[in-house]
């Protein structure tokens, strides 16, 4: 258990109301012995109080008063457990139509997505939306859990019909590189969640937990070019480190090595990496995800928000961008309105030039001319920037290809954007 903290797998769960998402998570916690006695007691107490015949595991995850009152999940909750193999973080996202924004939020930080289907209902509109959002966000690993198998008498025939229905969605989808695994389960009774089920003896695949344990991190890692955005400039101004000028940031994609020829953007100034350090240790190289501090050979001007890249791997550069936007605010997105655009850690003013169209999120890909985007809408939008940004298409580098739009009046995060690959940019 100890010593595996360098291995973390981030999951997110998606399903409709009453598909049993929270129950599934509760079941995983219970069967992996991750629920402590006091938490289990609390669940037993609440279940009894509500007059249930069984333990209501959703009580382990529904944290807010309003959620427990209504028996629904409103906000993304984070749940933690670990096995001998590694640590897991689950983002439990609500399934209501109106909470699509939470699904995008939960999915954006996860490596594996679990889509729940109620075996009695099969593939429904919500399933299509969940799959669509996973494609939009380029989730590489998807587990489709056909839940409540107990309520359809563990029927293999019905299960296979659902799998066939889902495969039709896959054939309609534009993103083909994901691995999709189907597993029949009963979260309430624990069939095929952690332990193999006799009721489902016809199913020869792994249980859900077996499958998750066998996912190899190197298989689902994004292959992307090195992008190093400077968060803060470190200048100690002490006798020992008098001339030290380090650029601190978290490396997104790829690898950087001492001696690499690099370009600082947007200035375009060229230099070489002189040192890479993490705390008080120096290293020859760093790879994706490391929060490092680097120094350059030359005294070039670098400030917060600047992007340091390898000189032979330059990203796009433009003042006009085209992007898919998922809108998350009550106030609709309107053409000609202005927002702060935050690209990683860099903030620039931006103005919506045109809303090209709204894209249906039900996996049909249908488009519609609209004058505004409402909460939970997805649309293709053209944006004018107050200064150039250096970015990649989202499909090539998630970290450098996504941004958020911030409402200048309320300061809230109003939408999330994904840079488009197909669009040609004027340099």
């Amino acid at each position: 258990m100890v010593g595996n903290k360098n291995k973390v797998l981030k999951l997110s769960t998606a399903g409709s109301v009453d598909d049993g998402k929270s129950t599934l998570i509760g079941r995983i916690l219970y069967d992996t012995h991750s629920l402590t006695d006091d938490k289990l007691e609390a669940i037993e107490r609440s279940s009894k109080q509500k007059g249930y015949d069984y333990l209501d595991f959703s009580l382990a995850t529904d944290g807010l008063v309003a959620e427990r009152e209504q028996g629904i999940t409103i906000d993304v909750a984070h749940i933690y457990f670990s096995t001998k193999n590694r640590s897991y973080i689950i983002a439990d996202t609500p399934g209501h139509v109106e909470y699509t924004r939470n699904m995008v939020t939960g999915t954006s930080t996860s490596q594996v997505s679990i889509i729940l289907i109620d075996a009695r209902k099969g593939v429904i509109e919500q399933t299509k939306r969940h799959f669509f959002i996973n494609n939009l966000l380029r989730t590489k690993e998807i587990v489709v859990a056909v839940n409540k198998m107990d309520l359809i008498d563990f029927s293999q025939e019905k299960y296979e019909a659902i799998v066939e229905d889902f495969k039709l969605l896959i054939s309609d989808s534009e993103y083909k590189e994901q691995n999709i695994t189907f597993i029949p389960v009963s979260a309430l009774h624990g069939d095929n969640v952690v332990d193999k089920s006799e009721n489902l003896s016809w199913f020869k695949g792994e249980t859900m937990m077996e499958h998750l344990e066998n996912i190899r991190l190197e298989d689902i890692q994004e292959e992307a070019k090195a992008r190093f955005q400077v968060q803060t400039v470190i200048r100690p101004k002490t006798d020992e480190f008098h001339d030290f000028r380090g650029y601190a940031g978290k490396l997104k994609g790829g690898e950087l090595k001492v001696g690499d020829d690099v370009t600082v953007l947007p200035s375009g100034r060229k230099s070489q990496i002189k040192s890479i350090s993490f705390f008080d240790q120096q290293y020859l190289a760093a790879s994706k995800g490391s929060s490092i501090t680097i120094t350059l050979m030359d005294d070039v001007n670098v400030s917060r928000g600047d992007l340091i890249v390898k000189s032979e791997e330059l990203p796009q550069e433009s003042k006009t961008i085209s992007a898919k936007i998922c809108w998350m605010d009550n106030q609709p997105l309107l053409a000609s309105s202005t927002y702060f655009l935050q690209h990683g850690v860099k903030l620039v003013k931006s103005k919506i030039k045109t809303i090209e169209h709204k894209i249906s999120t039900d996996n049909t890909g249908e488009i519609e001319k609209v004058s505004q985007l409402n909460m939970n809408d997805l649309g293709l939008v053209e944006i004018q920037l107050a200064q150039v940004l250096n970015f990649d298409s989202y499909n090539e580098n998630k970290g450098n290809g996504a941004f958020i739009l911030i409402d200048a009046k309320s300061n809230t995060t109003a939408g999330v954007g994904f840079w488009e690959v197909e669009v040609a940019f004027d340099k």
Partner: protein
Amino acid sequence: MNENMNDKVVNNPLEDEAIYIFREVAGQFEKPVILFSGGKDSITLVRLAQKAFYPAKIPFPLLHIDTGHNFPETIEFRDQLVEELGLELHVHYVQDNIDAGNVQEESGKYASRNGLQTDSLLQAIEKHGFDACIGGARRDEEKARAKERVFSVRDDFGQWDEKNQRPEVFDMLNGRIDFGQNVRVFPISNWTELDVWSYIQQEKMEIPSIYFAHKRKVFERDGMIWSAHDEYVFREDNELVMEKIVRFRTVGDMSCTAAVESLAFDIDKVVEEIAASTISERGARIDDKRSEAAMEKRKQQGYF
């Protein structure tokens, strides 16, 4: 700087994430402060902040909201750490607020000053104009905290609007606020109790001695073990004082923090014990047992 050249930085995703968050605080705010209780989570925060800005000093002061009911070992430790790292420490005393009649001390068997910290915290924020308060809260601690953001906006009254939180997409943190508002920042949101302990072990960090097994005068109530410190902790006459070998899993206000019997005299044993534990750490915090929504209610009012 160490002259030995290592091959490649070894990733620890939780540590990298926390450092990233600290650097965002430095980049986005004018007057941040680290909320420091002397407990293991805030000690971990200080360690991560050190790593985030090395070789520069931590660019934030520390703020301790002192209930006056602390374990003396914690205060001693706090002062030592502050001196070692050359940091600035602000202390605000709950006692001052009680004396001024701003808050009412609880009475009775379960009296605790834990909830009273909120007012002192809000006063400190206003007095110093802190715009970001960095805290060691973790999502795995408690179910209302499981819904907390990394950057969590509080209004002028320090209130948490749990149903209207900003979405946090990818790793982008939006710290834009209006004057008078502040942001609570939680760099170790995604750490579990075991992660913290393993980190303390790995980094060979110093922590207050009360986290390790020691002999203590205690009494039992409701199946829990309390420090027999009559000045701070109410004790009925029939609640007999005895000596046990105990340690603490959290160090809050003495009046709401129970001990556990333990023979974990060093960090390796503590990590082993936590890994095998069947009780959550908040299981020993009486303040959370008051009701199912105890933490959510405190948070809405501006608690950490």
